[in-house]
């Protein structure tokens, strides 16, 4: 049976898709058979971030409607054999994702995979509730900024009341905080909420802190999950987050201002 992980946030633009791509790739790189699903019907973007946009033939809604089989719609990643992408449909009919349809696809996937990563759309509408309904674990992606923290708290409320685990009185969804776009210099200057502040407000287990990084845009430009840029700060931070998710004890990095060396100052590194 696969473990179903939803990547959610409420607010848009905080890094859900970046995180979905990175975590899925990280899990797959460690040999776990992983599928990552784009739930953002009408605004699919995961395929772009994963770099497989030109290989999309069938999508999630085609599978739900029985117009294509799962094996036809799943796109195998060219860099990692154990990673598959299920793209979202570009249809404007948001209701195409039915609870039964999504449940059937996840059920079928869970026989062949270890992890299913669900990339949620922003907001609290249908697509977002469908992405979290069947989840076992939730990664709440939050920026150290007031509206994002508030929306994350709203999502936690929805996770604890409107998921299948909540409705069937099963063991609750495990919830993790992933703080992204973190700028230690601004935190030091008192201009940005610190990781401790956000944790105190949301009281969640901290999966990782992803520093504000140029590597993220560079990676999305190229269609490469940023975790594959293993030299970059963001890539390393996502690598640590994957290790923590799998139960390893890894100290947090990039929480304080990195002192620049003489050469990096000179060459603008």
């Amino acid at each position, binding site marked *: 049976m696969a473990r179903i992980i939803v990547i959610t946030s409420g607010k848009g633009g905080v890094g859900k898709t970046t995180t979905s791509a990175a975590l899925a790739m990280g899990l797959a790189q460690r040999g776990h058979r992983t599928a990552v699903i784009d739930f953002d019907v009408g605004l699919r973007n995961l395929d772009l971030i994963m770099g497989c946009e030109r290989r999309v033939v069938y999508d999630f809604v085609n599978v739900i409607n029985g117009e294509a089989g799962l094996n036809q719609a799943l796109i195998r990643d060219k860099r990692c054999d154990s990673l598959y992408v299920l793209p979202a449909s570009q249809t404007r009919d948001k209701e195409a994702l039915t609870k039964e349809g999504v449940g059937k696809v996840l059920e079928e996937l869970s026989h062949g995979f270890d992890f299913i990563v669900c990339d949620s759309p922003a907001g609290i509408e249908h697509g977002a509730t469908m992405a979290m309904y069947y989840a076992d674990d939730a990664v709440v992606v939050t920026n150290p900024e007031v509206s994002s923290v*508030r929306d994350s708290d709203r999502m936690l409320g929805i996770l604890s009341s409107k998921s299948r685990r909540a409705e069937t009185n099963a063991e609750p969804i495990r919830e993790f905080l992933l703080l992204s776009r973190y700028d230690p210099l601004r935190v030091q200057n008192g201009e940005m909420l610190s990781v401790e502040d956000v944790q105190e407000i949301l009281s969640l287990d901290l999966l990782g802190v992803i520093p504000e990084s140029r590597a993220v845009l560079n990676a999305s430009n190229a269609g490469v999950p940023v975790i594959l840029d293993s030299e970059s700060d963001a890539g390393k931070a996502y690598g640590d987050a994957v290790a923590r998710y799998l139960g390893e004890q890894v100290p947090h990095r990039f929480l304080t201002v990195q002192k620049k060396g003489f050469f990096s100052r000179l060459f603008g590194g």
Partner: protein
Amino acid sequence: MGLLDYFRSSRSKGSASVAKERLQILVAHDRSERHRPSYLPMLQREILEVIRKYVDVDMNAVSVNYEQEATREILELNIILPDTARNRA
């Protein structure tokens, strides 16, 4: 304390602490709303209907308040009767 330290300490009390304070209040309020039972608005409306059968009270005359404490839940009902109620009885 040097002049530089003065500037630094005044800055560290900057916008982030304001953000944290605002969020703590907001999140506490949101959470208390979230834990209110969903039947409260309906309850309020039905109580009001019953009262209006006997007394001509205002639509805002009934307030229902729900509070959750560690060991008990308090459902508080407050009904404001109009001054003329006694005359009618």
